[in-house]
């Protein structure tokens, strides 16, 4: 017995090198054989022994555990959970009354039928974000305008009507650079003044007031549904004119500068707003008869295009097959933007007001000989069949959403000029949406506009124009003549001196 106990103690002695003992090792080995029951165990016992030793490795786990870092997705998810929370103090009666939001699920359903859309869950999140926008900003009416894709992140755009009595916060003032010129004049009047620049910057076209023309609606954007909405500034005609000439991707951050030629007056927020204005003017359509022109009372001096319309209460839907076949059943309901960059034309050749008061008569203004031609765009509610073709492609493609069940299909219209603009109509319901990169179809390729020719630095005048240097013969002739003259003068002086001496 004692020899067995001492042998067991010997077996339990830890090895000096690996801190294992043979007793534990053999126990584990036999347990492994018991569990696994390998075939021909005696032949593989050495391998199993080595495996047991290898499995003994344990990594040291400290008592400190890593906190899992919150990923971006989790942060966004927290924001989006807030979308789903209901406010407790709203009465249910208020909610059941008319909301400024359109019917959310219905639009999502029709868009899916048309083959457009952002996926059901994403649409749902977007509509909940719209609901929150309406609640926080107290907007009279609001709808989803669409989504503009960018390289870094995207923009979800909502279109809303201005609240009553809202004024434009930013006002672009017409600071004449002539004032700076005058200051420079006074400084240099003592010294020889450098030639004055004859450059007159083109007059700025005044911005349209909010609620009219291109600024009829206000737009809010956000990067992801759940993040706060940002209001976009109003658009100015200069921005629209330049936006027509440049082609740039959006990056997803509103404060990125837009580096381009011609230089864009503003940053990405302004460029985004300008593109939204152009897309709306070009692609927002409705079925013929849905809107009717509002009749205005009173005479109007100029033939200002009517920019107001109202929903026609007597509208009965047009059959879907007809809408899909012919473009004359669709009309634009957003004003066309003129070449000037505005929807209503402004005559820039009118003299400034100070001079007119001096003259005292306002009629003389209209008799300017070189008055520019007023620009006229197609009036509101013109059918799409009058849209011009560009680069050989028809401006719109239309089809039915389903050929197998045309009784319940939706008529879908897709713009070829602004890829990504869609409109659908089904009975009395219709909607427009834009999902794309925010650029117009440019045909073959885009070539940036050429910079203007450099201007002359100075007016050509008498003391500025170059003359030819005299040639060698001419110089010699002149020199001889001068020498003769000098010689003659010296002789005269000598004779005078002699005469004086003689006199003395």
């Amino acid at each position, binding site marked *: 017995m004692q020899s067995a106990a001492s042998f067991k103690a010997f077996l339990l002695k830890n090895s000096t090198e690996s801190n294992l003992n043979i007793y534990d090792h053999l126990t584990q080995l036999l347990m492994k054989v018991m569990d696994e029951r390998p075939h021909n165990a005696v032949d593989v016992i050495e391998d199993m022994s080595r495996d047991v030793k290898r499995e003994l490795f344990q990594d040291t786990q400290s008592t400190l555990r890593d906190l899992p870092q919150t990923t971006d*997705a989790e942060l966004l998810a927290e924001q989006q959970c807030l979308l789903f929370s209901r406010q407790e103090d709203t009465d249910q009666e208020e909610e059941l009354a008319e909301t400024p939001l359109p019917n959310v699920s219905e639009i999502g359903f029709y868009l899916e*039928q048309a*083959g457009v859309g952002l996926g*059901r869950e994403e649409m749902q999140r977007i509509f909940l974000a719209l609901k929150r926008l309406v609640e926080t900003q107290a907007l009279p009416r609001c709808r989803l305008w669409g989504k503009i894709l960018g390289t870094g992140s995207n923009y979800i755009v909502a279109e809303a009507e201005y609240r009553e009595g809202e004024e434009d916060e930013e006002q672009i003032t017409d600071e004449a650079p002539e004032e700076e010129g005058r200051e420079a004049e006074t400084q240099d009047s003592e010294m020889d003044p450098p030639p004055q620049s004859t450059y007159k910057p083109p007059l700025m076209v005044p911005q349209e007031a909010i609620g009219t023309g291109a600024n009829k609606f206000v737009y809010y954007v956000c990067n992801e549904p759940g993040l706060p909405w940002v209001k976009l500034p109003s658009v100015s005609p200069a921005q629209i004119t330049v936006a027509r000439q440049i082609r740039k991707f959006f990056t997803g951050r509103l404060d990125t500068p837009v580096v381009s030629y011609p230089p864009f007056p503003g940053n990405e927020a302004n460029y985004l707003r300008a593109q939204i204005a152009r897309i709306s003017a070009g692609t927002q359509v409705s079925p013929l008869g849905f809107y009717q022109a509002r009749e205005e009372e009173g005479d109007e001096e100029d033939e200002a295009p009517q920019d107001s319309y109202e929903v026609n209460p007597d509208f009965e839907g047009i059959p879907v097959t007809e809408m899909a076949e012919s473009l004359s059943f669709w009309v634009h309901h957003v004003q066309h933007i003129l070449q000037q960059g505005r929807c209503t034309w402004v005559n820039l050749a009118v003299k400034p007001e100070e001079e007119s008061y001096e003259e005292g008569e306002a009629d003389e203004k209209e008799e300017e000989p070189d008055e520019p031609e007023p620009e006229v765009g197609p009036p509101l509610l013109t059918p799409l069949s009058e849209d011009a073709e560009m680069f*050989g492609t028809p401006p719109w493609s239309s089809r039915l*959403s389903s050929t197998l069940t045309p009784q319940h299909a939706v008529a879908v219209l*897709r713009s070829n000029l602004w890829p990504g603009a869609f409109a659908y109509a089904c009975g009395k319901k219709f909607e427009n949406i834009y*999902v794309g990169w925010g650029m117009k179809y440019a045909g073959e*390729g885009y070539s940036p506009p050429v910079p203007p020719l450099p201007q002359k630095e100075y007016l050509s005048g008498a003391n500025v124009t170059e003359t030819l240097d005299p040639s060698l013969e001419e110089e010699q002739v002149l020199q001889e003549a001068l020498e003769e003259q000098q010689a003659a003068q010296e002789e005269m002086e000598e004779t005078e001196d002699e005469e004086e001496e003689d006199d003395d």
Partner: protein
Amino acid sequence: MDADSLFFSLDAVAGSGNTLSPEQRAALQSSLLVLRRSYKFRRVLFWGKVLGLKQDYFIAQGRGEDELRDRKYLYSLNCIDWFLLPPATDSTVAQVSGAARGQFVGDPSFVYERVESPRMSEDEAAQSHVNKVNEETRLSVTVHQIDQDVSVVPRGAFIRNHHGLVHVNRSFAGLSESEAKKLDSFLHLSEAKNPKNPKPRSVLQNGELNPAMDFLDVLSDDVPKGSWSLQFESAGRVCILRSLLWLGLTFYHLPGTPQHGYVYIGDGTKHLDLPFML
């Protein structure tokens, strides 16, 4: 994207704006399976949609043993009847680039004509030859070019064995969140652009590469830089890559899962204005 995963992967790429209507989805699911059996493909994928003025083309791709070389394209106008597209060769590519302009019309038998007259020179007489190409040929060349330029797969999804055969990696567990944010983890599934002069890499870089997985071109080597837009969509869960060179190509991948795929829904024109726009 794989025909088997069609019903949920279309939602992942829907962020680009184009989805398929439920009717088209249902038709595709059935007809792609029939296609796989009749052509004896190993895998059949819904490649995308090329939009035309009158009709749209739905494109499917069938893959055989070798994922890289054994590919066939088929097109359909109604998601049910499929026609095989002829493979694109150098001569057809030259033909198409000479003749086809503008957007796709939507009629496979439409013929594009373009009269090319070289400049008058004193020695040669003016010879104007007419370049003609079929819309079907143009479609096959476009589809081939898109796959060459912008097909995307995550690193590790396909492996090449020592025979040179490229096949799906069954133990691909997906990229991690941090890997999915880098453009280096995505590769083109097409023949390498310069197989004879590969980009010189340092010894340290070569040590990290795995010859079974890294035999394809990396996306971050694409010219011009910045022609890919990498974002996380759908509440930050799905990693989306959009190509700016062929507008309309969207690649999706759910990090941590082996799900990935790409689809092209667009008008089939290369975006040559890209350098002006970045």
